[in-house]
């Protein structure tokens, strides 16, 4: 399924400065796998060393949080938009 992954500003540096990436994938997991295969540096920002999605990064298919769908097994439809939404706090760390 042709889907678009929206890259949030803090992570664009690791995705070749792109705002969004078009991919072909059947599930969210596949899409993120494809994304991190294309952009290796993105992997550590999205996944922990154990290979789990980091908890300060949320992933949405269209407007739904995948934690309330089938997580990384969530099936994708043609034209879906996957949003990666990390927590941001401006200012200082």
């Amino acid at each position: 399924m042709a889907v678009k992954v929206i890259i949030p500003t803090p992570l664009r540096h690791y995705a070749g400065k792109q705002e969004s990436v078009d991919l072909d994938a059947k599930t969210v997991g596949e899409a993120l796998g494809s994304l991190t295969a294309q952009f290796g540096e993105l992997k550590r920002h999205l996944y922990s060393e154990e290979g789990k999605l980091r908890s300060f990064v949320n992933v949405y298919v269209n407007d739904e949080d995948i934690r309330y769908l089938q997580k990384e097994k969530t099936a994708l439809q043609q034209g879906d938009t996957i949003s990666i939404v990390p927590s941001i706090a401006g200012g200082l760390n």
Partner: protein
Amino acid sequence: MATQVEQAAKAAGLSNEEVLRYSRHLIMPEVGMDGQLKLKKAKVLLIGSGGLGAPLGLYLAAAGVGRMGIVDFDTVDFTNLQRQVTFGTSDVGRKKLEAARERLSNLNPEIRIDTYETRLTSENALDIIREYDIVADGTDNFPTRYLVNDACVLTGKPNVYGSIFRFEGQASIFGYPGGPCYRCLYPEPPPPGLVPSCAEGGVLGVLPGIVGCIQAMETLKLILGNGQPLVGRLLLFDALRMRFRELKLHKNSDCPMCGEHRTINKLIDYAEFCGIRGEEKETPVSSEIPEITPKELKARLDRGDDLFILDVREPHEYQICNLHGHLIPLGDLPKRVSELDSSREIVAHCRSGKRSADAVQFLSKAGFRKVWNLKGGILAWSDEVDPSVPKY
């Protein structure tokens, strides 16, 4: 002379001055006298009087929120003026609370402003927040965000949330009865250093202006009971594309804070939670990073010592000012390390000394034995050696 009845009516209502001041509210059926009185009785606490706090404070004061509290311990800095529009150039060096109080009181002398010149902590948060109906979070760091969230959930106060980064913003309302809290969205904070700050990431000043205004709007809607508030909705704003998107926020039934089985019943150590204190304990090597001060560097260069200056900033920073160093941005260092000669003495610098400390640590681990960090970066160089170098 006003009779007791007239006085009582006035006390329950608005003075003639207030009627005139708020006339544009009063002529709207959605607000009217009832709505304005709700605003007058409302008590809103602003956490932070910075980029987000500026429009929040200004618009809530303008709207006639009867009581506002502001928590901030900071002093107005020249670099704040690009976005913190409560302040003027003449306020640089003053306490933010003092300058904010003056500005907001001038805008609207009818309202009560209480200031809390303190850092919000686990010790004081509950007591301060309890006095208010709504909290507007305009803070700039993760530990405080979690603290504010938890304190709001524990005291039952809605938390109007806004945050920004570069050209993006987020807004929502957490802690509304039946709605999600911040931990439902982000159970854990990012480890320190993974998400850049405004000082490192930069921000277009008007962005917190827009997001803060959205927060002010949501606060007013909560007070008035109008419209659909951002409860269970995460508003995402992309300023470059000028697009708003919305994502659904679910209340997490397993949330340790607001879920069915709460496991967090009191405020915790948020610095530890965010890994900040932990990092200090785990990396004592940060205090062992070899350093050279700007004066020492100048002395060695004047002596003719063969030092290699490595600048680990970004190209656009190099354009602002530089020490004619060899530029390898920190993020590129791992793949460009072959450009460096480990037999030479290398002094690494950045803007303030933080990124270059990381560079020195990286190079040391890679086997470089003669690397030093320029303490305080090019900012310190400007302060101590060459004031003609602009600070930024």
